[in-house]
Structure formats: C-alpha cells, structure tokens
C-alpha cells in the first residue's frame, strides 16, 4: 500500500514538475523551433539553433516586430521521432507558439506532420526529403531544395558532359534513401542508365567493397548521396582504388569541412547546392548575393565557425515566419496563408515562390553547380567562365 502511495507521490511530483515553467503573460511573440541539437544529427541542429538564436537577437535589437519582441523557443528532439512529437505538442499547447521552424531531420518532420495538421500550426521543416511536402499538407512547408531537383541537376550536368551510365551509392538513412529513390525515379526520363546501385550504413568506415563493385561495372561516373561524414570516406576510397571517373555528391555535401577533410581526394567533386557556399565567387548582380553575404558574415563572426547550408535552411524558415508576422500579425492561420502565397522571397536556399500546390517554393534553379577546388567550394560557372577566358586569351 505504502509503496503505491510513494509511487503516486513520485508520479504527481513529476507531473507537477512538468509544468514548472508556467506560461508568462506575454508581450513577446513566440515562435517554436525543433532542432536535433543533440543526438545523431546534432551537427545539423547546431548551426540551425545558432542561426535561429542569431536572428532572434537581430530582430529584437532592431525593436522587434511592431514593437513586440520575438522569442524563439528551441526544443531538442535528439533526432528521435517520439521526442519531436512531444516537442511540437509542447510548443503548440504549452508555449502557445504561433509557428514552428524545423525539425532538422526527415523522419522527425514526417512524424510531426500530422500534429501540425491536427493543431493547425504552420510548420516549416528544415529537412530535405520531398515527402514532407508531397503530398501537400495544409500547414506544412519546407525550405531546403527538392531532392528531385538535385537529382535532375546532376543528371543534366552529366548529359552535358556526354555521360549516360552512372553508379549510385547512398547511405541507408532517410536522406540517402530519398536521394536513392529520386535518382532511380528520374534516371530513365533523363536518359541515364544506373549501372550500379550500392548503399552503406551512415556509420560505416570503409566503402571500398561497394566501390570495387562499381569500378568493375561500366559506370562513367559515381553519384554519392548522403549527409554523413562517410561522404569523405567515399572520395578517399575512390582515390585508394585508383578510380578516375568523376564523383558527384548531393546537396548533403554542403559543409566545407567535408571538402577539407577529403584533401586531395576531394578535388574536382561536383555537386548541386544552395549558393551560400559560393557567395564569394558569385556575380555581384546575383539577386541572392546580398542576403547570402550578410548571413555568412554575421554567422561566421558571431560563432567563429564556417557557415553551412543547413543553418541556411533555418534562416530561410525563420525569416519566412517573421516576414509573415510583420505583414499579417501573430495569427496562425493568417501566417499560413501568407507563407503559402509568398512569391519572390530571397533566401539562402534560393528564391522562394510558394503556392497551394508547392509548399517547397524552390525549383531547380535554386541549385548552383559547385566544384571543390583547393579544398574550397567554387561555383562551377565561375570556374568554367575563367577557363573559357583562358582559352580565349590563348586563342587571341
């Protein structure tokens, strides 16, 4: 009997503890954020959280929105779906946020999709997979570029070089899996033949077995699709095996540290990604240049760390929400409508044009083809232009 008394006391204490942060009668406008600040995808959540906090400070320093400060409440889901579900419920029902940015990863985003719908709160995911917005859910948006566009850009580039047979190697997580599906779906219509289809675990340490198989096939190029550090291993293993065919990566390669870690093996890797990575080599008249340069310098000076496209996704998502609040005030339904009808929003990921049918808002032009040169990211167009100039000069 007493045991149960104690049990219940503990139970009640724990429950009362849950409510210790009673909601303050609120001046600030609350925006929720769910990022994988710890756990498997913490290297994604970290720049996202930093970015969100940076924007919060910036907006508030400028006097907030119509005189009201904003408060970005960041919740950690550790990349675990059940935690993301709890976090979104907390943000919506306890903190009464008017919109949510995140989650960071695809699985968590898909898990909270029905909750955003149920509670009617606009949710702008920072995860890549197209299945987040396809089929379209009324309240759910996302800012990263589409996987399918990434696949198409790689294929287009390959065709421009006259390559038609490709080997794909993808990681067995949601990001790699979505890439694999998109690559396989778009290859036939683009006239590309998939000569080998290999996978590896996100924590694997060596891919020479898969690459040996690819080497023995008649593939003319390799596409690697993952976000994990194993991308570096793929390039190194290719070099180890003496493979000379080109390596293309997905937009998951968007962290210059990967290029640095790849060293010589990374030279010449080509991949589509947002222009944030190559802001220095962009033409001055590029409409995104101002936004990108500001984000990059702000972030890098504040956190003493290199900027990555992942933080950029949070940047775009949060600004979409803030812009909406500025226009229509802190009202969930109005924010949703505003975001859905946003056109020409210049973000780090591209220029967003949302519509009721398209909750991603980016098309394939959001991608810039990027090449690794001297362990740095350079816009391929800039390289090719300068190469062309060299040729022209020589011809002169």
């Amino acid at each position, binding site marked *: *009997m*007493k*045991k*149960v*008394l*104690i*049990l*219940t006391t*503990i*139970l009640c204490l*724990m*429950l009362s*503890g*849950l*409510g210790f*942060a009673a909601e303050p009668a609120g001046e600030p406008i609350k925006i929720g954020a769910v990022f994988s*600040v*710890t756990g*498997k995808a913490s290297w994604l959540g970290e720049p996202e959280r930093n970015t969100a906090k940076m924007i919060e400070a910036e907006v508030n320093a400028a006097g907030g929105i119509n005189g009201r400060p904003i408060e970005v409440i*960041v*919740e*950690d889901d*550790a*990349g*675990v*779906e*059940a*935690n993301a*579900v*709890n*976090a979104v*419920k*907390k943000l*919506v*029902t*306890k903190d009464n946020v008017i919109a949510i940015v995140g989650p960071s990863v*695809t*699985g968590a985003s*898909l*898990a909270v*999709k*029905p909750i955003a719908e*149920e509670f009617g709160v606009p949710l702008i995911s920072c995860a890549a*997979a197209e*299945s987040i917005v396809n089929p379209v859910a009324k309240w759910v948006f996302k800012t990263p570029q589409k996987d399918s566009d990434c696949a198409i850009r790689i294929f287009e580039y390959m065709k421009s070089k006259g390559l038609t047979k490709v080997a794909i190697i993808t990681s*067995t*997580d*949601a990001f*790699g*899996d*979505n890439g694999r*599906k998109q690559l396989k779906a778009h290859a036939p219509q683009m006239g590309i033949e998939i000569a080998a289809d290999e*996978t590896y675990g996100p924590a694997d340490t060596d891919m020479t077995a898969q690459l040996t198989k690819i080497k023995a096939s008649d593939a003319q190029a390799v596409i690697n699709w993952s976000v994990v550090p194993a991308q570096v291993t793929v390039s190194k293993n290719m070099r180890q095996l003496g493979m000379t065919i080109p390596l293309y990566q997905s937009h998951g390669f968007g962290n210059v540290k990967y290029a640095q870690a790849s060293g010589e093996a990374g030279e010449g890797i080509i991949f589509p990604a947002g222009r944030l990575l190559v802001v220095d080599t962009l033409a001055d008249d590029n409409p995104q240049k101002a936004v990108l340069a500001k984000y990059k310098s702000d972030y890098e000076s504040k956190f003493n760390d290199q900027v990555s496209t992942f933080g950029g996704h949070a940047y775009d998502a949060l600004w979409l929400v803030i812009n909406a609040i500025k226009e229509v005030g802190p009202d969930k339904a109005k924010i949703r409508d505003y975001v859905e009808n946003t056109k020409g929003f210049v973000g780090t990921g591209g220029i967003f044009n949302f519509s009721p049918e398209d909750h991603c808002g980016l098309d394939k032009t959001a991608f810039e083809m990027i090449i690794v040169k001297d362990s740095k990211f350079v816009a391929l167009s800039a390289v090719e232009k300068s190469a062309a100039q060299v040729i022209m000069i020589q011809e002169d």
Partner: protein
Amino acid sequence: MKHYISLAFFIVVVMGLPMIVRNPYYVGTLVFVGIYSLITISLSLLLGYAGQISLGHAAFYGIGAYTSGLLATRCHLSPWIGLVCAAVVAGVLAYSIGRPVLKLRGHYLAMATLGFGEIVYIFLNSTVELTGGPSGFGQIPRFAVGAFSFKNDTRFYYLVWVTVIILLVLVLNVINSRIGRALRSIHGSETAANTMGVNTASYKMQVFVFSAAVSSIAGAYYAHYVTFVSPATFDANTSILLVTMVIIGGMSNVWGAILGALLLGTLPEYLRTFGDYDILIYGAIMLIIMMFAPEGLAGIAAAVKRKFEGTLVPRAAA
C-alpha cells in the same frame, strides 16, 4: 490482498489523471510512458524474474509497429486486427529464434539478441518496397470503434493505460503464483530449478514469446498513435533504453518497470530547459541511481517506505 489495494489505488490515479492534466503535451508524454510501460513490464518478467537479458526488444517493438501499420495502410485492415496480427507475428518469430538463442547465457545472450535486433533493423531499412526503407511511411489510420476514433491524446491515453492495467493485473497474478516462482527460480539457479521439476527451457521460451508479443502490441500502439513509423525508432539504442528503464526502475519489481518507464520517458521533457546540457544531466542521473540505489527506483521507494514506517512506529509508541 495487499497488492489489490495498491492496484486499486494505481487504477484510480491513472484513470483520474486526465481529468486534472488536460494539456495534450502532458497527456501525450504519458501516452509514450504507457507504451514504454507495456514493454518494460513484460521485459521485467524476462529480465528481472527469469533472469534472461534481451537487447533485441526494439525489434519486436518495431515488428509490431510495422506489421500493424502496413496491414492498415496497404491492406486497409482494421488496426485492431493489425494489433492481433502484430502480436502473433512477433510471437511466432520469438518462438522460432528462441530455441537456439535462449540456450545462450549472459553476455552471449545479450549479443545474440542484439544481433537479432540489428538484423530486423537492417531488414526494415533494406526492404524499401515493403517498408518504405529508412524514410519509413506515414498516414497510418488511428484506432476506432465504430464512429468513435481514438484521435486525441486523452482518448489514446485511456486506451494505452487500460492495456497497461490489464497487463499489470495479469502479470501480478502470474508472479505471485507457481509460475512466477518457477521464473524466479531460473534466475536463482537454473540447475536447481531443473531438478526441482521446473521445465526451465519451456518457461524461458514462454516468457520470451510473451514479452515479444506484448512489445509488439506496444509497437502497434505506437504506429497508430504517431501515425508515422521509420526504422530509426527501433534501433539498438531503443533496445538498450528499454533494458535501462527496467534496471533503473528496479528489475525484479513490476512496479519498478513502470517507474523506470516514467522516469526515462519523461526525463528528456524535464531536461528541455537545459539545452545541450541535457545529455550530461541524463547520464549523471543514471549514474547516481545505479551507484547509490542498485535496486533501482523500486528499491528507493522501498527504503523510503521503511524509513517512513520507522519514524511512524516510535511516534505511535510515544
């Protein structure tokens, strides 16, 4: 008789809670605690009573979620039928691997079950056409009885916790019976149990199959509650978390199993305010409990109770 009063009290508290706690976030958190409790109660029967460790129960949890979820989305079967199928599939699988696996002992048993869990995880990841692969699949329908759908958190809370209570009653009855004693005797000494007429192999198998089936039911609940499943939820970390819940709770005590699920199921929610430091605090709490209360939370509760009685008695005497 004594544990019936306890049980009645517990039922009143569990049933009454949603009247006080109305916020869907709290209720939702407790739904997960309930789902975990189903597994930890059955696992405490396996680990705490029969003394057989399993680091592969996330696999049964996952099999339940996938079986029921897939049947409902692909074959449009009622989730209730899916629930039964899930239990049967997991039970049959547990039975078929149980024979060789349960012959192993200690760390070898741990590795074998861990390996089994990983194989199931790889299978869920790799059969993309069937399971949706690493991206999982969504739009799983919710439970419904006629027009009554368990769509909001409070309704689901009752569904899960009524199941927990039923399981608890059954398990309490079993552990205080000849079968409960037989299980504990396996933990004590398998040889002695054998010579006293206990068919240890058969009981180990029964409790393994039972816990697999219950975990599978918990998985089905998960699938129809979250409405989305992906393999990442059912990896080795989850298996280890479940065993941790049982041991932190106090492994030879079913009440402890619920306490463990409650603590580790809600701890991440408390730690939200600490940001990145949550991982340190989580680890520290675990460490401190295990160092200073090796009997787990149930052990602490018992010690508090003794102290409580200790202070009461002299006062009554005075």
